[in-house]
């Protein structure tokens, strides 16, 4: 698929119907025995069969877009566990696995997450440094053959902008960006205090094609945030909630929300104008399957797009 065609088709598809992303990767890998503290990206090389299996399960569940297991595969993030030299190999392997699982008519998103560094003055990282790390990762993902980019879980608008600019240096592919917002008394804000509307505008100006939110909030809170996001931008929007809040039960992390209640909330999110939906932490192929069923049943008419 050439980049131009893919850009046209995925964004065009979203004008015809709701497009479904996959669910969680990290929490799935934990259930397959990934030891805590091990960067999930290492499994692209050491346990490729499991990564492939997760992708295939999401495709079977009805996801239109699967995301590469590269959330923490920027060199800056990998450096924290001493794996920065594997940056290229881990990203390449991840794309190859997702491509293997991806049939015609479905899409592979190159996933990019935060570096874990704080920008000055709170931390020591410089904007340019982050932008370079993102650009370098995006270049590998792009030449390995992703169809689009999905930047996620950004808690600092400036880091998100560094990621958008970094990707835009090396690629014109469709670019999705999700910030992660907390619910505060005066509305929704990122950890660094970025407010929804102006943040999304800046991301658009920097070159994002689709903007939205993922993680931190469960589906109930995300329903409200979705309508705030819808009012903030003319771009297509993406929303990916967590499966409620994690609980520790007998030494194991459990997300107690059931796929059916999650899917009901996602349906509300769709009704308030989301064009792309999916699941974040704690969601499984079962969640995606349930959403798919409910969305198909719903006679969806595109809304909110100019």
């Amino acid at each position: 698929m050439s980049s131009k065609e893919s850009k046209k088709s995925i964004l065009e598809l979203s004008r015809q119907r709701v497009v479904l992303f996959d669910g969680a990767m990290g929490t799935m890998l934990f259930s397959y025995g990934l030891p805590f503290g091990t960067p999930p990206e290492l499994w692209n090389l050491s346990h490729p069969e499991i990564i492939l299996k997760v992708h295939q399960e999401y495709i079977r569940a009805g996801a239109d877009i699967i995301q590469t297991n590269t959330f923490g595969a920027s060199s800056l993030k990998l450096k924290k566990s001493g794996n920065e030299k594997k940056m290229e190999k881990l990203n390449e392997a991840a794309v190859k696995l997702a491509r293997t699982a991806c049939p015609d008519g479905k899409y592979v998103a190159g996933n990019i997450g935060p570096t874990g560094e704080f920008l000055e003055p709170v931390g020591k990282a410089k904007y340019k440094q982050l932008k370079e790390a993102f650009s370098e990762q995006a270049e590998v993902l792009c030449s390995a053959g992703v169809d689009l980019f999905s930047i996620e879980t950004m808690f600092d608008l400036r880091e998100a902008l560094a990621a958008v600019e970094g990707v835009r240096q090396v690629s014109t592919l469709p670019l999705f960006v999700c910030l992660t917002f907390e619910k505060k008394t005066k509305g929704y804000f990122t950890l660094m205090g970025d407010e929804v509307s102006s943040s999304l505008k800046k991301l658009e100006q920097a070159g994002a094609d689709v903007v939205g939110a993922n993680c931190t909030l469960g589906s109930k809170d995300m329903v409200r945030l979705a309508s705030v996001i819808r009012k903030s931008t003319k771009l297509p929007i993406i929303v990916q909630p967590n499966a409620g809040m994690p609980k520790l039960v007998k030494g194991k992390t459990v997300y107690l929300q059931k796929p059916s209640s999650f899917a009901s909330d996602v349906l509300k999110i769709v009704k308030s104008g989301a064009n792309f939906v999916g699941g974040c932490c704690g969601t499984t192929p079962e969640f995606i399957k349930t959403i798919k069923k409910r969305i198909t049943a719903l006679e969806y008419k595109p809304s909110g797009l100019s």
Partner: protein
Amino acid sequence: MERFYEFKLKTEEANRVEKKLKGFLEKCYRAVLEGDKEKAEKLATEAVKSNYDPYLVIEKGLVRGIEKLGKDWEQGTCFLPELVLGAEAVKAGISILQEPILKSKAGKRNLPRVIIGTIEGDIHDIGKTLVATMLSANGFEVIDLGVDVKSENFVKMAKKYEPRFLCLSSLLTTTMQNELRVIEGLRKANLRKKLKIMVGGAPASPSWAKEIGADLYAENAIEAVRIAQKEIGHELKRK
């Protein structure tokens, strides 16, 4: 009559000094709200030169600022950058104001000591560092062991530094089990009763603290300070 004027003059003088000091404390407070580290340092240096009571400047100036930010942060009206920069300003100011105090007490520090770190297997830094910063901005001596701290290392450092508090941070539900190993290690080393253990981090809770035999649980950095202060009573305040 002459005496009366003398008295009046003296009171006026006292009022003027008091007003000046009040204005000065207000400046310190503002410097923290603005997260202006350089200004806090300048003011602290000025305070030392002018012989202002360092405790007063810390308590009614700098710490009052960080308390305000902490309150706003809990209410969601100020955010991480303001809080971190404010705490940095307080820390910078305190370290200058402390110099004369330390000299006068023969260099002996008597701040309540805290050891803090993120548990083995977990490299989450933000929450832990914020707690460390807030504690030291509120007059605790903090030894930050960083992230992914081995259980043995917590015990070793507790033995060496004899802290009043040991703060354990975790963000991953499975590695948080390692907190139990730290507590067992302390017990074996006969250190358990010599310090208070405080746990925190997203998956921690009061019931988790109880389950593993920790003494205290704090929901966030501001609460950690409040709880630690409550534990040591009002030692920090001027006697």
